Structure formats: structure tokens, C-alpha cells
């Protein structure tokens, strides 16, 4: 089990990452709180040794995505929450940022996470494949389709 200090440091380092992943996958604040608790409790109870900060970050991303998927799969949730509504965005966000985020969040779930990992976290397709446990070709396909859809919504060239 990890010390309180280690947990505090992890929250300071990865809370924003977990929050963004929650936004990519979930729709409301209550679910985000659940995911935060699940992820950081898992970290506190885990004795996994990390080789580097990057390794640790990848662990948090994988655990957060899995926790989000578990939550979405749960029987109770599937009956009570609409999956169509858009995630709550910060009220003070600028117009362009809001527009871009809404475009990303309007993509199907499987595209949203690869867009986040590739465009924001700068992971390569093989890295994304390892984190998500997906075949490399699948990742390439997902990225290409996501890019096409984003280009339609936002205009301009992706990956330039």
C-alpha cells in the first residue's frame, strides 16, 4: 500500500489527465467523482513499481479508461443515464475551445479516446495500441476515421 504522501503527489500530477479522460468518456460530474475515487484508491492499494514517470502516466490512463468503460457497462447505469447527451464543459471556457471540444466529444466513443491520446498526449499509434490493448492496424484505422470526421467538423488539415 502506498503512503499518503505518494497518493497526494499522484493526485497533483494526474488529476487533470484523469479529468480529461473522464470528460472524453463520461457525461456527468457524479460519474467523474466515482472514477477519481476508483482510480486513486486503486493506485493507493497497488504495489506496482513504475520504471519511469511515463510508465506511471500510462498506468493511470489505462486504469482510468478501464474504469470508465466498466462504469458505462454497468447494468444500473445503462438504464438510468442517457448516453447521447454531451459531457458538461467548464463554463468559463472560450468559444473556440468549446467548439473544438464539442467536435471531439461528438465523435463516437472509440474515436474520442484515440484522438485524445494521439493529439493531446502525443502517443504514437503503437503506444496507443499497447495502452488500449488494441491491434496496431485497428488503431491506425480508428485514427484515420477520427481525423476525417474532425476535418469535416473543424476544417483544415489534421497532423500538419
Amino acid at each position, binding site marked *: *500500500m502506498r503512503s*499518503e504522501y505518494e*497518493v*497526494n503527489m499522484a*493526485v*497533483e500530477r494526474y*488529476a*487533470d489527465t*484523469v*479529468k*480529461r479522460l473522464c*470528460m472524453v468518456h463520461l457525461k456527468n460530474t457524479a460519474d*467523474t*467523482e466515482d472514477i*477519481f*475515487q476508483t482510480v*486513486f*484508491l486503486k493506485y*493507493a*492499494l497497488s504495489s506496482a513499481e513504475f520504471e519511469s514517470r511515463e510508465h506511471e502516466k500510462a498506468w493511470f490512463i489505462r486504469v482510468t479508461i478501464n474504469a470508465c468503460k466498466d462504469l458505462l457497462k454497468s447494468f444500473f447505469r445503462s438504464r438510468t443515464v442517457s448516453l447521447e447527451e454531451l459531457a458538461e*464543459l*467548464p463554463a468559463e*471556457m*472560450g468559444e*473556440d*475551445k*468549446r467548439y*473544438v*471540444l464539442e467536435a*471531439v466529444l461528438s465523435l463516437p466513443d472509440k474515436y474520442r479516446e484515440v*484522438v*485524445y491520446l494521439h*493529439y*493531446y498526449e502525443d502517443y504514437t499509434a503503437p503506444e496507443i495500441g499497447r495502452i488500449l490493448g488494441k491491434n496496431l492496424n485497428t488503431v491506425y484505422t480508428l485514427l484515420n476515421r477520427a481525423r476525417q470526421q*474532425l*476535418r469535416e467538423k*473543424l476544417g*483544415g*488539415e*489534421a*497532423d*500538419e
Partner: protein
Amino acid sequence: MNERIKSAFDSVKAEEELKEKTLRYVSSRTGKRRPAFRAARLLPLLACLALVILAGGWAWFSPSATISVDINPSLELWLNRFDKVVQVVGWNEDGRELASSLDLKYMDYEQALEEIMASEKVSSLLADDGVLSLAVVGDNEKQCGRLLTGLQQCTAGQGNAYCYSADEEELEAAHSLGLSYGKYRVYLELLELGSDISPREVNGMSMRELRDMMESLSGNGETGSPQAHAPGGGQGQGQGYGQGKGPAWARDGEG
């Protein structure tokens, strides 16, 4: 587009409240108690509070002036800067007896003095023409001046009461001989008049006896000036015995 996506995600941050809530939850589940507030944030406030309490305690409990009361019981009232008695010290047998019979701690000095003067021992000595010496000793001129005025008012009805003030050095010299300040002054006067009396003998005698001894040594039947001026500028109260030389201890401070 890359930059627009990056910048858009960058503006999403985890709220402090969410972090706090998560940490409290993890603590509660792992058995490590986490307070509602981070204690570290309160440390400067607690440190200031502790300092204020310590400073207040120090100001309250540390003596800043002494009133030496001598008639035969010799005792000293140690006062804090608020003129409250923080300690009572008996300097001879009678003094210790009187100190233990009265509960003067944390009393205002005027009230404490009234209690002393109303005690059986002191009131009977005063009724029997006893001499009461009251000395204010301290380095704080303002406080000493205030105390001296207060003492003079307290003893205004007592013909044989003498009030004066002195400084800390003299008090220390008195204590080094095992004497209260009032008796130390008389002891010095007796030495000056040629007596070979010991501090121990002085300590056992009443102020009336010592005063009589001074009068006989000075070969003068008169008992001093009606007003005993204090070195610090304070004025004493005394009975009107005329303008004779009188004992020097009762004349101190006269221009």
C-alpha cells in the same frame, strides 16, 4: 488542428474540490485519516495564536514591580504589569506566616494591601504605634509612579506609614542579605549611624523598634520629617513630627 485540440483539452482541469474529495475518500478507505482541511494551511495561524497566548501568559505571570511591606512582618508583593499580585514572598517568620494566612494572588495591589493592613497582626501593630514602610521597586517608571500614588492614597489614614520608591538594583542587594527592601533601607541607615547590627537581627525586629534604635543612635528625639520623599519623586505619608533631622531613610529624596 493539432494545436486547437491541444489547447482545448489544456483548458480542462480537475477542480481542487474534486482532488480534496478524492484524497479524503482514499484516506477513509486506506485507514489514513485525512482532515477536512489540510492542517499545514492552518499552521501559520496556529503559530500566531500560540505566540499571542505565550506573550499574554508571559505578560501576565512575569513580575514587573515589587511592593515591599514592612512593619514587623516583612513581605513583598510581586506585581505584574497590570498591577495584579502574582506572588507573595515572606522575608521573615512573621512575614511568611502572614503571607500564608492571606490569599492575595491575582488580587489588585490596592485590595491586597487593604487585606494586609486589615489582618489581625498588622492592624494591632498599627494601633500600637507601629511603623509601616511601603517601598515600590521596579524599572518601569510609569508603573512605579502609578503604584506609589496608589499606595499613598491607600495609607492616607495611617499616620505612621511611609511610602517611597527604589530601583531593581537596590532590591537585589536587599535580597542578597535575606532582607525585604524596607528593612534593607533601615539596615543601611543603622550602619551609617555606627551600629554593628546584623541583617539577621534587623530582620527579626519590628519597624518601630528599628526606628527607635535609629533615633537613639542619632541622639535625636525627633522622629523625622512629616513627609518621606521617595527617590523616584514619589511622596510618602507620615505623621507630623515637625522639621527635625529625623532618620535619613524617611528623608530620602528631599531636595
